């Protein structure tokens, strides 16, 4: 099966005809993604990449039965696009935009309440299920089908982990970037739960970073609710407090935000932890071997 994106998913792209969206939609089609159309207000009724373009998400859902949307619109308009997708009944919404105002996300999260929609991102490379497809901007050729689930805040660190796993012959069931912003639509815990319930995932790698309570909250949840092995890494042990390390969410505000504090808590909760970023692949292998 895999999580959030599977062979039954019907995908649309919002902001479809833009330059970046076009490039990444072509890449997604190359790896077999079931892309069924896109939305660009004002261009409804036309065709793009051989697929229908719609004026509204509502029209797209009616015509195609889409249940997954990749949002490629610029940050100032992204919150509106997300809420349009929620309103139209899209179940999985992947938000690539980097730079959405945080108060816009406060509103999006309020709007999403009770709808059952999953918002992945913002500021994420997206989601890939190797062998099935992708909604996002990650280089699909580095991933391979397998039985490890990956969830990370960072994009490139996700790639690093995948490369280390490939050397050891390990592939992925799905890989999900939850994004580097202070407010993400989907947190680590939600993704862990999906992987725990997925029969095609044997173990989960969680890649966090400094700032915020998410990694520790997820580790506490996992301790109570998970049977599958969980491996954790937290980037930024050498980061100084009070400085925003690239990602808006990566800032040490108090003692529990540091990488060391998070890793120590994860370890005390029985997780496999990675203290050296070069050991991510080896630790995953150890975890599934029961070592």
């Amino acid at each position: 099966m895999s999580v959030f994106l599977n062979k039954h998913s019907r995908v649309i792209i919002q902001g479809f005809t833009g330059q970046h969206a076009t490039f990444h939609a072509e890449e997604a089609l190359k790896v077999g993604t079931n892309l069924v159309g896109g939305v660009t207000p004002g261009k409804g009724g036309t065709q793009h990449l051989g697929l229908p373009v719609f004026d509204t998400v509502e029209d797209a859902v009616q015509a195609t039965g889409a249940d997954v949307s990749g949002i490629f619109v610029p940050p100032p308009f992204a919150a509106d696009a997300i809420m349009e997708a929620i309103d139209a009944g899209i179940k999985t919404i992947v938000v690539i935009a980097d730079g959405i105002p945080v108060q816009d996300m406060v509103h999006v999260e309020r709007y999403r309440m009770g709808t059952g929609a999953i918002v992945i991102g913002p500021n994420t490379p997206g989601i890939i299920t190797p062998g099935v497809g992708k909604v996002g901007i990650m280089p699909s050729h580095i991933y391979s089908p397998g039985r490890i689930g990956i969830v990370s805040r960072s994009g490139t660190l996700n790639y690093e982990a995948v490369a280390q796993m490939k050397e050891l012959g390990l592939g992925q069931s799905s890989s999900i970037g939850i994004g580097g912003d202070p407010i993400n639509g989907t947190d680590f815990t939600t993704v862990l739960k999906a992987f725990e319930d997925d029969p095609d995932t044997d173990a989960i790698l969680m890649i966090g970073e400094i700032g915020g309570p998410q990694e520790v909250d997820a580790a506490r949840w996992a301790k109570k609710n998970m049977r599958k092995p969980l491996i954790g890494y937290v980037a930024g042990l050498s980061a100084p407090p009070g400085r925003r390390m690239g990602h808006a969410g990566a800032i040490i505000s108090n003692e529990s935000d540091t990488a060391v504090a998070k890793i120590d808590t994860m370890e005390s909760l029985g997780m496999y932890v990675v203290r050296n970023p070069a050991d991510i692949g080896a630790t995953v292998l150890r975890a599934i071997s029961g070592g």
Partner: protein
Amino acid sequence: MNIHEYQTKDLLRQYGVPVPEGRVVHTDEQAVSVAEEIGGSRWVVKAQIHSGGRGKAGGVKVVSSIDDVRAIADQMIGSRLVTHQTGTEGRVVHRVLIEKASTIVREFYIGLIIDRATRRITLVASSEGGVDIEEVARRTPERIIKEVIDPAVGMLDFQCRKVANKIGLKGALLPQAVKIMKRLYRCMRDNDAVMAEINPLAIIDGGELLVLDAKMSFDDNALYRRPAISELRDFDEEDPKEVEASGHGLNYIALDGDVGCIVNGAGLAMATMDAITLHGGRPANFLDVGGGATPNKVASAFRIVLQDPAVKTILINIFAGINRCDWIATGIVQAIHDQNIKMPIIVRLAGTNVEEGRAILNTANFPFIIASNLDDAAAKAMAALHSLEPKVAPLKKRTL
């Protein structure tokens, strides 16, 4: 983005929040004229730098004569103030705030943050004002009161009353406190602040509430729609290298080590710094070239990293997704030639167009140290560093 205390108070004043009478000045002469204009017999002279802990560092002085206003202002302006947040080099004080001094009866804390766990703006308050709120949270967590605000209806009067009641703002003070909380929330919402803090909110002699110190910071991602806030940015308070980097679309943060870092992606950049640290080294900076890095952007990254005279070697770690290793390599070679770089350069390339990228480096007539993976790159950076200083014994590998 952070702003100065005087700017925060000007903003709060526009929202009807009671702040002390006062004005910012750039010279001791102006300080005297402002103090005379305010009148009274006691004034506060406050150094304006972007840092907490100014009081403890000697940056806040209460004086009771015009001569002292002049003397203290003269002493502060142009001096370097070192607080626990500025680092040892401190910050130059370019201006001071002159305010009417008040007699404090009691102090409270009121703040608004964007809470990551609830994903909402949260009102935080405490009866323990005028001190470090994080310290209060650690020692006496029961004295921190929190109230989550629903963005659909905004901050409600009853929520403010609940909070005011719990921290001991009763009687005639209650309606005053409600007004201040609601206005602070309005100010935060209207201006895309990510944090707004009043510490202390004081009951002063005469029984009124007054904001004695306040701090706000703003969402960089929302500045495009807040031109008035953007204008408050003070480049003197920022590292010039970081300002230049952001102009090139690079994310740079100066650190105090000697291994320069050029990486794509914030997470991988942090992991690279961590790998260097684990090998006993010290990163000189955090630098994220971002996605779609052109050769020119990479060359700019070199220029910024090399402005730091402590840098002895540079480690480049690229895992190209939407980036292209050939563009990165072209930028590296361009920088080596144009900037006449002689120091050891360690390069780890992976991902999109890696073969093309390696070929460009191989034909460049420069002894690049090629690393096969992250660990190898950090190890080679340390070896390069030791080869520069043969007298220093190799450092032991550190573990966390």
